[in-house]
């Protein structure tokens, strides 16, 4: 569609864009990124033919952009700019209808049925049809932005240039607009070139990203390549952290606020003093939120939580919606469900085993409740019927340290191996298969860390963290099972 060759230019003797070259293919959603003053808007104005190039050239569909007349160009390119001036109160429909200007022929520029149809369609698509008779001066910034989008779409362009299209839009319209653009690029071959301030939106929707810095191309590649932590940090001069999107394969960057760094000074310690026991539940309340990876009933997965609850339920506990019931239970007992990881067990809570371990530079608290009435040998689990018998091992591991993603995953592996070894040493049998069990069918695990203090990259079995977890989980599991067995004998 576009071929930009050694382009340079800017305003009256002050070049903003320096010698850049790139191509844009038909049907792409092409994002332009860059810090303030990097030349994004100037580049877009050059692409739209408003600002002339001082050297180099822009080829549009194989022809220099300068060779197109104003009307010809308007049939190919439509532009939605960031600001729009309003001096007179045209109605929404009058405004959108102006988009048909380039398509109307002859002296009298008759309004055809086709024009009317297109204007109605784009007003529907942008959600402005229901206020077509309103004056644009009465509209909110977001509504007005949509009216001008409709005007641009009424041009029936092959290329749509946008300067921060989501600027005035609220969350739902941001998503709707970008979904619409994505749909048009995929299904109608529309080429969309847009400036983004929001790197995450750009990463989520664009096929290709161009990162500008001081009027030069820093990187022109797929989003995952362009949105690298170090690159964004150097170009934007700010601390960011990259993470995957939870649902779609797109990179997301998050800011690291200065406040978060200050907290590092005093390293909080999660220890046995944070534990609270009663007949109904064991709770750990941390002074600061902990980054947790868990398989609890509430607060499972990855997140930041401040309270951790292991609740005793009757062996015959049966509830259609145990998650909802658990949330209600937490609320009743003064825990904020959105900040709490909640687990359940039928084990008597007096049988809990917990130990605090200190290593060189970091420390950890391990809490285990264990019942083995439902022990299962994982290697032969297909022999089990679906019915669930009470009996659960809930393992909590709290680390005063800064864990990587790998360390979280390896912590779970190491803890599981240690648990299986404890079962083996205590010769706990799977009652169906009569073989040594590896765990129970409803075990839960929690790894939570302060993410402050010493950096812990790995948690494999012979790393310092792995050694602590392996030893700790083994010891606590063995002790908890002993206590539980003793109670049964009595």
């Amino acid at each position, binding site marked *: 569609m576009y071929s930009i060759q050694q382009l340079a230019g800017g305003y009256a003797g002050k070049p903003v864009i320096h010698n850049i070259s790139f191509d844009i293919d038909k049907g792409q959603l092409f994002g332009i990124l860059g810090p303030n003053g990097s030349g994004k808007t100037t580049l877009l104005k050059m692409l*739209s*033919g*408003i600002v002339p190039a001082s050297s180099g050239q822009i080829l549009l569909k194989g022809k220099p952009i300068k060779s197109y*007349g*104003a*009307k010809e*160009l*308007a*049939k190919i*390119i*439509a*532009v939605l*700019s960031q600001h*729009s*001036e*309003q*001096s*007179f*109160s*045209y*109605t929404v429909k*009058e*405004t959108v209808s*102006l*988009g048909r*200007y*380039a398509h*109307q022929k002859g*002296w009298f*520029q008759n309004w055809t049925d086709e024009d*009317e149809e297109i204007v*109605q369609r784009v007003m529907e698509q942008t959600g402005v049809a229901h206020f077509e*008779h309103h004056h644009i001066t009465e509209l909110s910034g977001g509504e007005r932005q949509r009216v*001008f989008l409709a*005007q*641009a779409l009424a*041009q029936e362009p092959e290329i749509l240039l946008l300067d921060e299209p989501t600027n005035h839009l609220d969350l739902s319209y941001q998503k709707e607009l970008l979904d619409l653009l994505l749909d048009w690029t995929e299904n109608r071959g529309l080429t969309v070139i847009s400036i983004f301030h929001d790197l995450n939106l750009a990463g989520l929707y664009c096929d290709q990203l161009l990162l500008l810095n001081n009027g030069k191309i820093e990187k022109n590649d797929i989003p995952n390549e362009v949105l690298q932590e170090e690159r964004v940090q150097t170009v934007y001069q700010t601390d960011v952290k990259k993470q995957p999107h939870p649902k779609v394969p797109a990179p997301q960057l998050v800011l690291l606020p200065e406040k978060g760094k200050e907290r590092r000074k005093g390293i909080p310690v999660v220890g046995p003093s944070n534990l609270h026991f009663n007949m109904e539940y064991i709770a750990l309340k941390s002074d600061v939120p902990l980054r947790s990876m868990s398989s609890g009933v509430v607060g499972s997965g990855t997140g930041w939580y401040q309270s951790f609850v292991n609740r005793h339920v009757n062996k015959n506990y049966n509830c259609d919606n145990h998650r909802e019931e658990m949330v209600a239970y937490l609320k009743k007992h003064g825990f904020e469900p959105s900040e709490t990881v909640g687990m359940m067990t039928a084990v008597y809570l007096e049988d809990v085993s917990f130990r605090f371990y200190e290593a060189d530079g970091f420390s950890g608290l391990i809490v285990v409740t264990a019942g083995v009435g439902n022990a299962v040998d994982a290697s032969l689990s297909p022999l089990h019927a679906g019915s669930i018998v009470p009996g659960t091992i809930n393992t909590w591991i709290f680390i005063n340290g800064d864990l990587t993603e790998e360390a979280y995953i390896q912590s779970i592996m190491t803890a599981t191996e240690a648990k299986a070894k404890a079962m083996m040493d205590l010769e706990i049998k799977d009652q169906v298969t009569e073989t040594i069990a590896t765990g129970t069918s409803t075990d839960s695990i929690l790894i939570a860390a302060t993410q402050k203090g010493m950096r812990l990259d790995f948690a494999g079995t012979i790393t310092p963290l792995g050694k602590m977890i392996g030893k700790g989980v083994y010891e606590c599991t063995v002790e908890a099972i002993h206590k539980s067995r003793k109670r049964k004998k009595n």
Partner: protein
Amino acid sequence: MQKQFTRKFLNNKGIAYLIAVIFLIVAMLMGISIGTVSVPALDIIKIIGSEVFRLSLSGDVDPMHINIVMNIRLPRVILAGLVGASLAIAGAAFQGLLRNPLADPYTLGVSSGASVGAVLTLFFGISIPFAGAFTLPLLSILFAFITIFIVLIFARQIDRSMKVETIILTGIIFSSFLGAFISLMIALTGDELRQIIGWLLGSVSMRGWEYIKIIFPFFIIGSMILLANSRELNAMSFGEERAQHIGVNVQKRKMTVLFAGSILTGAAVAVSGTIGFAGLVIPHLTRLLWGPDHRHLLPLSILTGSGFLILADLVARTIISPTELPIGVITALIGAPVFAMILMKRRVERRG
């Protein structure tokens, strides 16, 4: 639903034109009828019917009335109408082009520029070969065009974004400067003094059919050009960049509109002197009543503008009869407060 709306839309515009035409006709009849000698409206219709359309209706009409209507009042009313229409459509076009409801030939300095052209012509007795009586309007138009250019270039130098107030301020500075220039010429002149003061204050009295012949072709040409550019004016009132994106050849169209506006202003000034604020008030009121779409705003401004100036002239010559006030006094008395009101409303809007 859609059809219903279209019909309603057309009806609304139809009513708008009907009201504007009735306003113009009533203004014309009043302008011709009222004066030291009162001519009944029916007589006026009969006289015009027989003298203009050659219908035999004038059997029982007083010959003196025929003389008053045909030689004094009718040309005066038509001239006032043409001047009002020219100023109003030029004002509407300037306002759309500059996205500025305060723009009009007077506040932009165009009228003063045209006056300088007219005064120079009278002062030096200039006559362009072959142009004859058209020397006066041609030089007025030339000076009007030069002035609007200098004003816009100057405003751009002060403020790249060409804010509304900057353009108006520049226009007023130029008006004052050119006004001083005209005063200087008046001071240097002796016999022509009375005639030149007439230009300054603006008047349509005692001009006769000759002046109608001078302004008419320019009014037609200027109005046709502007009417042909009404969609472009709509686009440009959204900003020049957006107009360009929509497909308007902005540079060319802008020049065309400025040129047509200068033709209309120059010709109006050449026959009647500087009449302020007519080009400001009329488009503004018309826009308030019937919307900013230039396809209707321009023709409606022609109708209401001519009616307005006919009535202003009527007031000017009757209010302290037998003495006549210059028509510019009346338009300024109405126009200046409206100007202040628009300015205040814009300020409040911006703050709010």
